[in-house]
């Protein structure tokens, strides 16, 4: 459990998603990272039914992470989040009348997991209905839980293999009431992933010119 930063890496010019991913793998292996299995993160969308007309329907996102295999996280966009047991999915089935599963909107990111000393790098292919839409890179610094203390180190590390696609400090850390020096939560990771998935979804919408 450490400070995580999730960012999206744009697909290289003239190359496919898979090739970009392979390039990143090679860079990491050159750096000296060791492959340590696979990971996956997925997100399901639930629409709240029965709210007043005129208001936009609230979307509930239920996410899972292979790092916390026994948990399910449920969050609203920009709103409160909840961490629960794996039985939460069964609960959502029971709440069918209040929350409808938007089956076509399931997004997931799968890939390999690399370990480089105290850093965990996860490079995944973001896929929506089994079509690859983008690349997600998650860098976790396991030795620290305060983003303010280790952000510079993480940025430097990311620069070494991401180059120009290094992200800025994620908004989740700055938007906290206590600021940068509050300890991280798994919710922060999930919010970042949610943001990324939202971006990926919108990208496709834009690219497909309105066709979902």
């Amino acid at each position, binding site marked *: *459990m450490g400070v995580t930063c999730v960012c999206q890496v744009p697909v290289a010019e003239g190359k496919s998603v898979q090739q970009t991913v392979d390039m990143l793998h090679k860079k990491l292996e050159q750096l000296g990272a060791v492959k340590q299995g696979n990971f996956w993160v997925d997100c399901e969308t639930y629409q709240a039914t029965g709210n007043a007309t005129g208001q936009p329907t609230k979307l509930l996102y239920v996410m899972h992470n292979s790092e*916390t*295999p*026994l948990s*399910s996280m449920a969050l609203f966009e920009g709103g409160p989040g909840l*961490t*629960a047991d*794996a*039985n*939460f999915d069964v609960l959502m089935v029971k709440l069918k009348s209040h929350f409808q599963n938007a089956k076509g909107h399931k997004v997931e990111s799968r890939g390999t997991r690399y370990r480089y000393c105290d850093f965990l790098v996860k490079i995944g292919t973001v896929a929506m209905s089994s079509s690859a839409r983008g690349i997600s890179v998650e860098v976790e610094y396991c030795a620290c839980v305060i983003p303010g203390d280790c952000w510079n180190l993480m940025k430097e590390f990311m620069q070494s293999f991401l180059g120009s696609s290094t992200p800025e400090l994620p908004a989740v850390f700055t938007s906290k009431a206590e600021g940068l020096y509050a300890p991280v939560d798994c919710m922060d990771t999930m919010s970042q992933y949610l943001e990324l998935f939202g971006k990926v979804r919108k990208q496709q919408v834009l690219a497909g010119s309105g066709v979902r």
Partner: protein
Amino acid sequence: MSGGPAVRVSIESQCERQVQEVSLDGLETYVPPLSMSQNLAKLAQRIDFDQSSDSEQDGPERESREPWSKPEPEEDEGAVKFQPSLWPWDSVRNNLRGALTEMCVLHDVLSVLKEKKYMALDPVSQDPIQTPQVFQLISKKKSLATAAQLLLKGAEKLNKSLAENQEQRRQRDFNSELLRLRSQWKLRKVGDKILGDLSYRSAGSLFPHHGTFEVIKNTDLDLDKKVPDDYCPLSVQIPSDLEGSAYIKVSIQKQSPDIGDLGTVSLFRRQPKAKPGKTWHVKLEAAQNVLLCKEIFAQLSREAVQIKSQIPHIVVKNQIISQPFPGLQLSISLCHSTGEKRSQRASPEKSKPDDHLYVLEHNLHQLIREFHKQTLSSVVMPHPASAPFGHKRLRLAGPMAYDKAEISSLQQSEGLLEKIIKQAKHIFLRSRTARTIDTLASRIEDPQIQAHWSNINDVYESSVKVLITSQGYEQICKVLSFSVKRP
């Protein structure tokens, strides 16, 4: 007289008391009046007892002589006139006089008696009560007979109970033995047979052995002959594969094993005292021990085969050999002797020093019992209907978002064999460290090295404090504290 104002007339009572003295300031002190008792005393003093009695007796005589002796009565009258004023006390006076007389007489008699010269006391003889002697004899006999009967009855009762106890102890009734057996072992009745369970299944073991023993009634007792001392009307029949006794031998040897020697460690180091007529208690305990050793060995061999490790473990017959360190061999063997074969006592093992590590054998027993407890632990039961089986803390894994490292730390991942190998490694490392420190300390004279080993150690960790001092220099002192940890 009329007219004139009233004249006050003061009346003073006559002063009845005499004036005792007149003080200088004119104050008169009166003689205090006599109290009643004082008055009485004064009057009583005026009684003349002697004169009154004479005067009484002479009274009527004087009255008869009155005509011819007139001048005498005049004198006597004076004395007699004195008497009527004391009349109320007369009877008192008489009584007192009488009492005084009698007291004087008694006093005189007693004083005369005391001297014993003139008077003596003698008891009044009474007539003796004449009872016939025969009657006395008969009554005495009867009372003695009653007493004797009571005592005899009591003695008889005591004798009877004593005899009963002895008889019981000798014969040892089957039912009382069965009761004793039932108080310690689980029994159940199947048809007309009584079966028991000596396995650890109720304690949490998962070993598939049934562990059933049968209770048999011994009816071959010949009451005419003398009952043998170790006779027991109850005997148990244990499964044939649990007969004899067993133990797990754990040893560490330095040399590499000779392949031909494998599988020959089945000989007993300890001589089992095989009595032909073992009581059921000893038999059952031995059988249970054999079962436990078998379970331990089965678990160890299963793990040895399944778990992949860098240096594979060798499992041969009843021995497991593994190499915790290169050149070091750890052998765990199950020694089961049925008590019949005595011819194989001569073995090469005897010449070697006894390197059986009792500590590890004990630890093996402890570990398997812990493993049993885990299947039955209260940590697992009771649990909510929706939660999966497992450690209670695992239920928090979801809401607290435990990652894989935390989850695996909660779950048991190490097997029996791995634990024992780690413990053996630790024992070896510790002895080697101690030896090294000692050789260094004896070889190096300056600075001086002292090692203090801690008494409280873990199976996986020990700690030693090494003091390196230089004689004469108090400030120069380096303290090394290190612990031999598990790898």
